[in-house]
């Protein structure tokens, strides 16, 4: 009997005092919102990358070190999306709680299904290929559920007194998400198999979920800017397959996409891949509301189907 009570005491000592909010830092606004959804007013959440910024190329600003220094929990996208900037920030945070391997470090990718894990030999001749799979997995709304669950579980472990609160917040989010998913699935259902082109390989989870078919990319290889030769090939292919939709992330230049659109009659659609990508995208569900609405409206206008 003595040992369990010692453990309980240790847990109590480790947990923040009652009423103190858990400080959460998320690397992206998507993860930050999921943490807010399940954490409610028992957490204080900050994001590092903005939703309209390329998450591969965030600068390791010292001001982020200050945020991380006082964090109890760091939620990262993982799969080497943040490889260029997160490790030095975490190291300089001097915060033992959020070092990889510690309880306060949560790699959200470990709870979801990851697409495009390369098999066989990979080299940088393939561009900025992610050896651990495609890191844009939050773009399947179903994965948002798994991420939210993982965050809720971790929060419950860190603040056991609020475990019930986090569980009920998660249940509520789960219900709202399920309702929204029905809406999105119904809106997208008529367009299964619709052929689209995207700028970067950011959308495999999104198109997989809604049954779109990506026939090409504006980038010749991931992370490599468009080349004239590849652009011409892409134009020919888009004409051949009558592709009318060209999806571009908000942080890419529109010059090449616009000229492709002029040649092919396709419509350039700037689709934010993250919460905060537009002013009205204030949370995870609003992100898909925005993107699905915009996509469906554009498909109807272009008569792509």
């Amino acid at each position, binding site marked *: 009997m003595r040992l369990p009570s010692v453990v309980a005491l240790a847990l109590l000592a480790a947990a923040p005092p009652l009423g103190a909010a858990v400080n959460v830092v998320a690397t992206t606004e998507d993860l930050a919102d999921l943490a807010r959804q399940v954490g409610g007013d028992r957490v204080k959440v900050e994001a590092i990358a*903005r939703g*309209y*910024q*390329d998450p591969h*190329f965030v*600068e*390791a*600003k*010292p*001001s982020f*070190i*200050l945020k991380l*220094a006082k964090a109890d929990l760091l939620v990262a996208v993982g799969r*080497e999306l943040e*490889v*260029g*900037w997160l*490790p*030095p920030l*975490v*190291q*300089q*945070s*001097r*915060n*033992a709680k959020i*070092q*990889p*391997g510690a309880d306060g470090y949560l790699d959200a990718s*470990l*709870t*979801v*299904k*990851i*697409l*495009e*894990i390369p*098999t066989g030999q990979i080299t*940088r001749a393939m*561009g*900025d290929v992610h050896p*651990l*799979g495609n890191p844009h997995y939050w773009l*399947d709304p*179903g*994965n948002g*559920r*798994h991420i939210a669950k993982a965050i809720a579980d971790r929060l419950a472990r860190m603040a056991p007194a609020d475990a019930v609160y986090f569980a009920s917040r998660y249940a509520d989010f789960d219900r709202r998400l399920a309702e929204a998913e029905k809406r999105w*699935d119904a809106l997208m259902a008529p367009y299964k198999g619709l052929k689209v082109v995207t700028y970067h390989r950011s959308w495999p989870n999104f198109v*997989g*979920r*809604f*049954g779109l078919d990506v026939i090409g990319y504006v980038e010749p290889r991931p*992370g*490599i*800017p468009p080349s004239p030769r590849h652009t011409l090939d892409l134009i020919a292919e888009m004409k051949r397959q009558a592709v009318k939709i060209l999806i571009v992330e*908000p*942080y*890419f*230049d529109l010059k090449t996409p616009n000229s492709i659109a002029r040649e092919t009659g396709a419509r350039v659609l700037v689709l934010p891949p993250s919460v905060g990508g537009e002013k009205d995208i204030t949370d995870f569900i609003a992100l898909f509301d925005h993107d699905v609405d915009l996509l469906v409206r554009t498909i109807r206008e272009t008569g792509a189907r």
Partner: protein
Amino acid sequence: MRHCLRSLTGLLLAVATMAVLPPRPGLAAQAAPGATPSADEEVALLRRELDALRREYGSRMAAIEEKLAAIEAARAAAPTAASAPAEPAPPAPAVAQAVPPATASKVFNPDIAAIGNFVGAAGESPGGGEPSLNMQEAELSFQAVVDPYARADFFVTLSPDEVALEEGYITFPTLPGGFLTKVGKMRDAFGKVNGQHPHTLPFLDRPLVSKNLTGGEDGLADAGISVARLIPNPWLFLEATGQVYQGNSEVFQAPTRGDLAYVGHLRAYHDIGESTNVDLGGSIAYGHNGMTEDTTTRLLGVDATLRWKPLRRSIYTHFLARGEVTWSRRGQPDAVDAVGGYGFLEYQFGRRWTAGVRYDNSERADAPGLRDTGGSFILTYRPSEFSLVRAQYRRTSFADTDSPANELLFQLLFAIGAHGAHPF
């Protein structure tokens, strides 16, 4: 797993049986026909049998491992093939996407990278300058986490004349009190440019002030201990660094064991909105210079950086303005005062293109009154994150020559291996 268990049990049984039972006469006769087997021969025989068993066991284990690896690979590949499940499948356990057993022995290898730095030069330079075509250096880096308390970084440079440990240190990031501690050989935390490796510099050469006052290419780099702490305050990022070194660098030479070199650095950083930030630093360094038993060199430096990078267009454009001034007082044994600095502007005007301009002005640490000045235009093209081509036009007026040096420099930088952090 069952196969595995069965063969393991088999092996254990066999060993146990051999240990307990007397040797079988038939086997002994085979080994030594017509002779009574001696104890030694029996031992040898048993050893052979055991070896045979071990080989068989090994090959069976290998077969099982192969099968396991194939299953793992298939499982990892499966989600790629599956398209648009109506209900998302339950999350795959993390283990399914872990490293297959075949490479398990390598997962603890450090991150390894190699960076080649090829430099070409043309034009007249009285000082000799860079060679016409030169593989200036290859840098090898090895970086990994040591244990839950520390990580280690090694940077080895191979240049035409030497192999050197550019840096090699252990970092303790989470010591109590917030002291970020490094121990090993390091580039001193003196100003901005001194801490940078050649491949992270925004120009091809080091500024004149580095060459004249702070040790040139090798710079201030020494073996020692560094401790850095954040100074909490509500307004800005403030970090104080204190370092103690052996006193064995281009500038500092300790005549005796007790004559350590000391470096102090204070860095202040503040965001002015999400696109713009300022970065200010002050540095001091003090140590014996080895001219005589008790001559010392004192260095004082200030640096200021203004950065602008709009987040929505962060991969296409940025602007950076930076200046550094260094004062040197070198006892030889009479004190020689010298001051130098540079100013640098850089603008990125395309995803792959960056242009820069630098002004140099520096006195010499050991020669009173001699002042060198120079200016450079720099153009950089980056085909990808892992390579760059750079051209630099440099005009330098040396204090001790009549005509200025006009030079055109070229650089090809290329990196392979682990993806390191982006410099900031």
